[in-house]
């Protein structure tokens, strides 16, 4: 009943449904990149360089004569793979830590939560920058730098849910039946603390995409020739005056993806419980 109601609520929200459709399209683009991309992303054709959008190249060509549309299509794959990786990794780790802290309470919980308060008080992009500064630029290091801060939110939310779930009758019942702590955490606490986590994951996907693109734009993320939207913006900015298509299209893609995730996240949050979560 509850689930059907939430689903109906979500489907009534036009913006969320639109966001969902956009994301499905983008995921399909990423999956089918090999078939739909018109050109090879690395094919350098110098005599075709910096051509404005045309029928042959709908989004123009870049400073090396590479087709921008093909690079955008493969960029979808890079962005989605990296951001999903970050979100799956951070949410799994964060939820694990959060449930343990909330379930066992005590001194470990206290220390962990203070530590999280401290780390969250620190501007996360700066921390990511410093980590990249220490270990060097690159795709893997980007994922690492963003993940090191990312799990904190999940831990906090999971802990808060666990604190209330562990007092519920059904947990009491499971304990009376002799279930082990691990069993209770996995089969009783985890499923019940998932709804807010899923909302957080959706909204978080948007901000992770932004972080990846920001690092790429600063030249610290994916290195050329990997097609990545932020890196493409970075390459295109020198040609801003005469070839704005090099900057306009990658930025547009970033914005559309983030917007779609934000729409879905807002819709999910309203559908599940309007006042359960406050996320900036």
């Amino acid at each position, binding site marked *: 009943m509850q689930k059907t109601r939430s689903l109906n609520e979500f489907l009534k929200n036009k913006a969320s449904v639109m966001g969902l459709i956009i994301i499905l399209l983008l995921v399909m683009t990423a999956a089918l990149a090999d078939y739909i991309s018109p050109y090879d992303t690395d094919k350098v054709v110098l005599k075709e360089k910096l051509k404005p959008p045309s029928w042959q190249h709908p989004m123009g060509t870049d400073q090396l004569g590479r087709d921008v549309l093909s690079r955008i299509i493969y960029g979808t794959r890079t962005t989605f793979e990296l951001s999903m990786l970050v979100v799956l990794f951070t949410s799994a780790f964060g939820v694990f830590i959060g449930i343990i802290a909330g379930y066992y309470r005590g001194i470990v919980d206290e220390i962990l939560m203070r530590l999280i308060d401290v780390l969250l008080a620190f501007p996360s992009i*700066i921390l990511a920058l410093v980590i990249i*500064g220490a270990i060097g630029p690159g795709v893997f290091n980007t994922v690492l730098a963003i993940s090191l801060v990312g799990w904190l939110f999940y831990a906090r939310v999971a802990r808060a849910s666990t604190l209330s779930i562990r007092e519920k009758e059904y947990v009491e019942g499971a304990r009376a039946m002799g279930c082990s702590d691990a069993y209770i955490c996995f089969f009783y606490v985890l499923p019940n603390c998932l709804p807010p986590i899923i909302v957080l994951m959706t909204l978080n996907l948007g901000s992770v995409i932004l972080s990846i693109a920001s690092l790429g734009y600063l030249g610290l993320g994916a290195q050329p020739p990997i097609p990545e939207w932020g890196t493409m913006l970075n390459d295109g900015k020198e040609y801003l005056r005469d070839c704005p298509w090099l900057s306009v299209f990658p930025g547009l893609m970033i914005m559309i993806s983030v917007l779609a995730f934000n729409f879905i996240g807002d819709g999910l949050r309203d559908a599940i419980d309007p006042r359960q979560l406050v996320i900036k």
Partner: protein
Amino acid sequence: MFFNFVKRLGIFCLVLIISTTLVFFMLHSLPGEKAVVMAKYIFLGSVELNPSNEEIQLVKDKFDLDRSLISQYISWAGAALHGDLGRSYKSNDPVSQEILIRLPATITLAFVSVLMSLFIGIPLGILAAVKQNSITDYICSSTAVLGISMPNFWLALLLMLVFSLKLNLTPTIGYGGLSHLILPAVTLGTASSAVIMRLTRSSMLEVMRQDYIRAARGKGLSRKSIFITHALRNALIPVITIIGLEFGHLLGGTVIIETIFAWPGIGRLLIDSISARDIPVIQGCVLFITLMYMLLNFAIDAVYPLIDPRIGGN
């Protein structure tokens, strides 16, 4: 109240210690790298060239870099407590001086952006809340989502393209008069306005549901007086927190925008020193940014009891 203050001060110090320690050990995580970077600057004057083994050994001996990281950390922290953050490898100027020179630019930009977001975000948030579910609300709210989702560096490029390159109204990059300030401030102000607008709206709607608003209505107060004296004042409390956080983000987080517009602030200094591997400057910047951020949070907490007597009075 006093206990609370001490507790906050404790957390404040803890954050400073943990963040600087973390950054110190991260920057020194590659063994021997510091000596190589220093040798590059001392003997070769550039981070691009590779120093010889003798040069690296000379630097190691001179600065005593073979001792343990812990002992290096203690001497750095000891000096930092006295306000000495070391010298930049690149320019050989004291790090504190490098930071202070760039402070005015960063503060100006952050201040103007926050001011802008207040003047746009709060009125639009109130408007959207008052006319909930109307066309006005719909337009305001969707514009806000757009503002949050738009990558700020992309917005910066678009603004630059339209206003500087096509219309020639503003200078593209650099620092100087008011005209240089417009584009970076608008870029940063857009996202902040959107955040503040959304929060003002939801906070206003939340407050309007409270019993004391119904009581005020029942007393027969005018709509205007209910809004201004009863609703707005309560609704703005969470908004103030966000304003402080936004200001903190802007003081440290303008990294990308400062880089795009060649704005000579702290964020740009941090990026430059990361690519130059100028370790003392990176450390100094992080310490400074954390300090500013925490001080702002502190200030906001101090302002709370003035707006909301329920807080802090116990």
